[in-house]
């Protein structure tokens, strides 16, 4: 399975598969694939995203044996992930036809993948959000994830989980209240 995937990449780029890139792949591909699988929950889409990440890395001319090769690769992958997520959210929120879509609503669209600098700034808030996620009951957590990170409509979520639309709405409100309360409480503590 592994070798077949690499052949595909070589053909697409027409580049020689140097040992540097092979080394990066050996080191990072399993982790990257597992990273993607967890987040898109679909084997085929995950593999496509991983392939595209390596393609973009190769085409971008990045140095595969540089110290920052793995972070660069993951950065590319996260951007692809967010591109896809942004598309899903936009299609759901503004309607697939797009012709009536009000482009002033850009403020509703999620931003790009967060930069490393931004991530460093908010690492303390990670702990808060992570704690809330772990403490949340399963249903609100799943509904929130399906809405926010998979871009499903409330009806789609209701159908998948076998609950009513109003329950979906209630779970989303529940999840969001928990996050807001925790962030406010945390903000007060640090004063």
């Amino acid at each position, binding site marked *: 399975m592994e070798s077949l995937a690499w052949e595909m990449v070589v053909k697409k780029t027409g580049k020689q598969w140097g040992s540097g890139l092979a080394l990066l792949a050996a080191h990072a591909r399993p982790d990257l694939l597992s990273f993607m699988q967890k987040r898109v929950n679909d084997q085929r889409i995950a593999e496509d995203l991983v392939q595209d990440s390596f393609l973009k890395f190769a085409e971008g001319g990045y140095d595969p044996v540089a110290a920052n090769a793995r972070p660069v690769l993951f950065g590319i992958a996260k951007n692809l992930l967010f591109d896809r997520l942004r598309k899903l959210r936009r299609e759901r929120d503004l309607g697939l036809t797009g012709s009536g879509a009000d482009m002033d609503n850009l403020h509703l669209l999620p931003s790009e993948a967060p930069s490393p600098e931004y991530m460093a700034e908010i690492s303390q808030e990670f702990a808060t959000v992570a704690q809330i996620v772990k403490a949340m009951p399963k249903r609100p957590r799943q509904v929130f994830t399906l809405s926010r990170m998979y871009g499903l409509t*409330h009806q789609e979520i209701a159908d998948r989980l076998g609950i009513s639309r109003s329950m979906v709405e209630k779970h989303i409100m529940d999840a969001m209240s928990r996050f807001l309360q925790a962030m406010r409480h945390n903000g007060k503590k640090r004063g």
Partner: protein
Amino acid sequence: MKMSERSEKNRPDDILAWQVLLSSGTATVEDHHDFKAWLEVSSENRAAYEEVQHVFRVYDALWADEQAPEEMFDVGDAVHASAPPYKLTRWFVPVAIAACLLLVVGGATLFSFLNVPKAPYVAETTAVGEQRALLLADGSTVYLNTDTKIEYSLSDSQRNVKVLNGEAFFEIAKDPAAPFTVVAGSRGVRVIGTAFNVRFINGVADVTVTEGAVGLTDPEQNARTQPAVRLEAGMAATYTASSIKVQPNIELEAVKAWRYKKLFYQNASLSHVVRDLNRYFSSEFKTVGEAAENLRVTLILNLEEEEILLNTLSKQLPIRIQNGKNNTRIISVLPENSISVPE
């Protein structure tokens, strides 16, 4: 009350209801217009919107982080109800690490065709205030913190690193054919694949495991009669040439924070903070007075310009920082009646 009616009201708490409506999949163009009108009603409404957006940004960022908690990804099979659950073929198989390490893991690695040359020890050093990441030829990553010196040597049959001084975080690529050993002071950490932090300063070593498990070996002892001290994720060992102490439950975020240019302190002594300041900055920091020795602090520091950091420090703690001769900074605790009461 319908949402369109609420679009003229100063009701910041309605932000949740708006968010639910706009992400429902059934919002109309009119709904979006109404929401814009609601935002224009008051700064409180806008602040509520910004607050929720901030939560979403943090959530998104956490979700994209490799260290995100597993619970974030649990949606059962709900997303593709018709697709069978796929089997994750993991390259890394978590195995118990015994004192003697050579465990053969099935499956070919791609290393076999690569020519990893036998090399003598190569030194890597960071200056005071510098941080750097190294990608080693075997695929492992070593993150070097301030004022650190390591030496490493990789071959087909073994991979060795010595932490001579300072602090480094290791993410070790799996290679059952070549065990990875990190020596700091009187002991070594022996692993096949995992992630851990090593600090070795002034004869005292701290090893904290963040992923997987390691065996802490004493090179002087025979590995067969003295089993290694096993450290699992979340555990840490502090040792010198003559003693060793193991702690079971370490706050891993605090240990990893330096890689994100932050320092976390939870009820730490001021002298601990000052020791760290001496590592990260070229000025010499000293404390003066008994009160300074007894002061416990809980805070987060951003590793940034020295002046800015010291400014933050003197705002958050009841201390005074004075400049002495030759680039020294003298820190003393303010007398009690001059401490401002936090709100």
